[in-house]
């Protein structure tokens, strides 16, 4: 079991969700984050003074997948929809997951995902 952590452009989130759904993966957790990378911050103006805003708003997605096949399907869905070719499209990190529990039923691991 793996956790796919993807940092993406915020406005892509509903497309990504649809693509994941289409791939049969109907579960994910989403959070608003801010990022810094190749894409640097930008300039804003407050009452006569410009200043740097360090971070850019991003959205982070967490999807836990059962197996290699589901992982691949999820990656394809995310990459397909999140890619625009511009700097700042974001990254995907894959982390190992040792156990999964569904709180409602107590189901474990593959069944719980």
């Amino acid at each position, binding site marked *: 079991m793996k956790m796919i952590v993807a940092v993406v452009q915020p406005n892509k989130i509903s497309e990504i969700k649809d693509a994941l759904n289409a791939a049969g993966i109907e579960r994910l957790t989403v959070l608003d984050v801010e990022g810094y990378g190749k894409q640097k911050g930008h300039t*804003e*103006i407050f*009452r*006569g*003074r*410009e*200043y740097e805003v360090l971070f850019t708003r991003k959205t982070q997605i967490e999807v836990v997948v059962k197996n290699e096949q589901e992982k691949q399907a999820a990656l394809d869905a995310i990459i397909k929809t999140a890619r625009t070719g511009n700097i700042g499209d974001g990254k995907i990190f894959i982390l190992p997951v040792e156990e999964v529990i569904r709180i409602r039923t107590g189901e474990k691991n593959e069944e719980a995902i």
Partner: protein
Amino acid sequence: MEFNLVDTLWVLIAALLVFFMNAGFAFLEAGFVRAKNTVNVLAKNFIVFGLATLAFWAIGYTLMFKGNFSAVFFSDYKSGVEGLKIPEMVFFFFQLAFAATAASIVSGAVAERIKFISFIIFSLILVAFIYPVIGMATWGGGFLYKYGFIDFAGSTVVHSVGGWAALAGIIVLGARKGKFKEGKINAIPGHSMPLATLGTFILWLGWFGFNPGSELAFDEKVPLIALNTNLAGVSSMLVATILSWIKFKKPDFGMILNGLLAGLVAITAGCADVTPVWASVIGLLAGFVVFFGIPFFERLKLDDPVGATSVHLLNGMIGTLMVGVFAVDKGLIDSGSFSQIIKQLSGIGFTFIVVFPASLLVWFLLKLVMGMRVSEKEEYEGLDYGEMGYEAYILDDKR
């Protein structure tokens, strides 16, 4: 009743508009500070009308208009004020609203680092003693009035007084942590433009009480004053828009808000004495003054979170001075004489000489006796946390 009822009604309504300017200052200042200091700023601006009521009722009013300390807790509304055509109670209420405004101006400049209690004490002293001295000289029949100094609605008496007190405050207080770091001037952006806009709109509305109400009657001058007030405000606002657009390639909304206020402050002295065209010229000037004034103070390492020194102090002075140039008959342009300019400079100078050192002294004593500034930790965490024990927004309440 021996008084003119229409005059009285008008001044009462104008007083309510000026009273409501406290809400305007509260939201303007709240919008221009960081979220973590919002409750503190709101509380200062809310409580200040209470403090002003107390101080002005107890001492300030009699000092200003009777020239003495005779009437602690003023109550003899029968004694009268010379030349007043409305009941003295209405006059008292109108003047009270003005006095509170002066204290509100200070509040923004010292925001985000001052101890609540220090602000309270300073406000009491300002309204009880310092403000009335200038008021007495100019509006209370004092020597500036006799000399011919013109400050119709208070560019000097209210706005410069507040401005000097604010400047003294930020000198003694020092800048917010992080404002000037490693020789760089950093912007500390305000947290809510809707609040700042609300505040500015309320102030704009209030100014239609502030200036035309100062006629203390409802006569043919009132519409002219209203028109002049608006023209100066919008001229200044449009100048600020254009200048910021040129400089930053984008209109700087914070500056636009301040721009409007700058024009309103500047016309306050001369609104009854200039024609509409000159009113808008004064506004144009104000737009430049505020646009260049804000970075000017920053370069002096003076940290004023809401721009009060530029809006109220600089434009209060410029506006007062311009009466000497543009006033019908008396000004340089009509009369060809510099005499009114000199009178204006006297008023400006006297205000500086009295208010700035007095304020410095009071602030300094406060610093000595009780400490004026919150701890560094508290400043980081926010004054809402440390001074007030409450935060402005709780949005995650699904929990």
